């Protein structure tokens, strides 16, 4: 038998599929799977909220303070003003089950946050930058809206679930990057609707309290013109002011709420510790 060498006609060791086809399939497929898992987890958190009614939440977070804030002294007279305003506003939400508390964080960055157990934290920077009671009422009302929609617990639950999810897939750096991009896109959509809902609730409280919504969003008009600096913190956790003002004004028009009315000035009691 004589050996006759022949050329191999095709290469069985290389897949004929185009690499870009594989890339597209993988990115789109994995992206979809990840998005589905993410949305399922978000709904799971909403479901879990049923098992933590406000009464239970209040017991769990009684007198609790987040560790990363530096509250001012308990005898700061500004606390009284805030507490009185909060009490007036929450009267218009009679079903509220929370014993609302307010604390001042001694930070120059303007921001306000809702924490589990009915705690609202307002920064000293925000107090300095609000110019009327109506402005401040709307900001407090907005945070009350987060309690109404239970966004504060939802945020906590989502944060915990996302942490678990990312730890699970962080074995591969690339896929973790893909995952976090998708999570950011999904979450920003979710939180935008949460913020809008809280805004509508806050505006309704302001209208109920004053009979008009004048000045309610003036804080945002002001930060829309002068941004950055001490407002960075607020802008990082809240929607862009321009969209927000447009939405608020549209909502007030829809509801037939007048935006003309007398604005209550703010006169803060002197902070004894201030120089």
């Amino acid at each position, binding site marked *: 038998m004589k050996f006759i*060498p022949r*050329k191999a006609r095709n*290469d069985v*060791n*290389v*897949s004929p*599929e185009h*690499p*870009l086809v*594989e*890339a597209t399939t*993988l*990115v789109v497929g*994995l992206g979809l799977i990840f998005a589905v898992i993410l949305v399922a987890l978000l709904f799971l958190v909403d479901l879990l909220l049923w098992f933590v009614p406000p009464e239970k939440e209040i017991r769990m977070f009684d007198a609790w303070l987040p560790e990363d804030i530096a509250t001012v002294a308990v005898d700061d007279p500004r606390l009284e003003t805030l507490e009185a305003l909060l009490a007036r506003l929450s009267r218009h939400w009679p079903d509220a089950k929370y014993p609302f508390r307010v604390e001042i964080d001694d930070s120059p960055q303007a921001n306000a946050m809702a924490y589990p157990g009915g705690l609202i934290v307002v920064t000293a920077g925000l107090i300095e930058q609000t110019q009327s009671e109506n402005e401040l009422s709307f900001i407090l009302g907005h945070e009350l809206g987060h309690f109404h929609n239970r966004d504060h617990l939802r945020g906590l639950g989502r944060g915990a679930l996302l942490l678990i999810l990312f730890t699970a*897939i962080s*074995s*591969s*750096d*690339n*896929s973790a*990057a*893909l995952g976090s*991009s998708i999570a950011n896109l999904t979450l920003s959509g979710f939180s935008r609707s949460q913020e809008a809902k809280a805004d509508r609730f806050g505006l309704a409280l302001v209208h109920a309290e004053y009979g008009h919504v004048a000045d309610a969003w003036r804080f945002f008009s002001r930060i829309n013109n002068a*941004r950055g600096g001490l407002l960075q913190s607020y*802008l990082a956790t809240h929607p*862009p002011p*321009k969209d927000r003002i447009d939405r608020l004004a549209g909502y007030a028009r829809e509801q037939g709420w007048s935006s003309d009315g007398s604005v209550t000035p703010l006169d803060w009691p002197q902070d004894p510790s201030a120089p």
Partner: protein
Amino acid sequence: MEPGTVQNLNLLLQFGLPLALILFAYFIGSMLEKRHFRSIGAREDALHGFPVTTFRNLPQNWQVGQAELVTGNVVVSLDYFKRIIAGLRGLIGGRVKTYEPLLDRARREAVLRMVESAKSRGFDAVVNVRLDTSRLANSRGNGEGTAGVEMLAFGTALKLDGR
């Protein structure tokens, strides 16, 4: 700067830059790969008919005049695009198709270099060919070292007095 501009810039940095890097790696990488495959094909054609076997025993009618060790080795690096796709593939499993051409190129190039060295030194055949591979660097995408495939082909080159 308008907040919209800042957001767009952020978006560009977060998604655009890596995407541009991946596409750049893809175009350069696939161009180099095509060129390499063309070169391999042409050189394999040129060496067509030169006996290269894995047999340890010779045909009985071969009369060996001289025998010597011949080697050919090559290191082929993978590109960023291949690495990303393989990383995603690692989540669900399956054939890592982007790595297959690398192994193929390395194996054929190593054998070609071995045979070319044998032929240029006047040998008539290479027998008892073996292939060996080793991992030179970490293939995880953590930036340590350059991941690639190293292939070593070696065999016994023979000068035949008659066959």
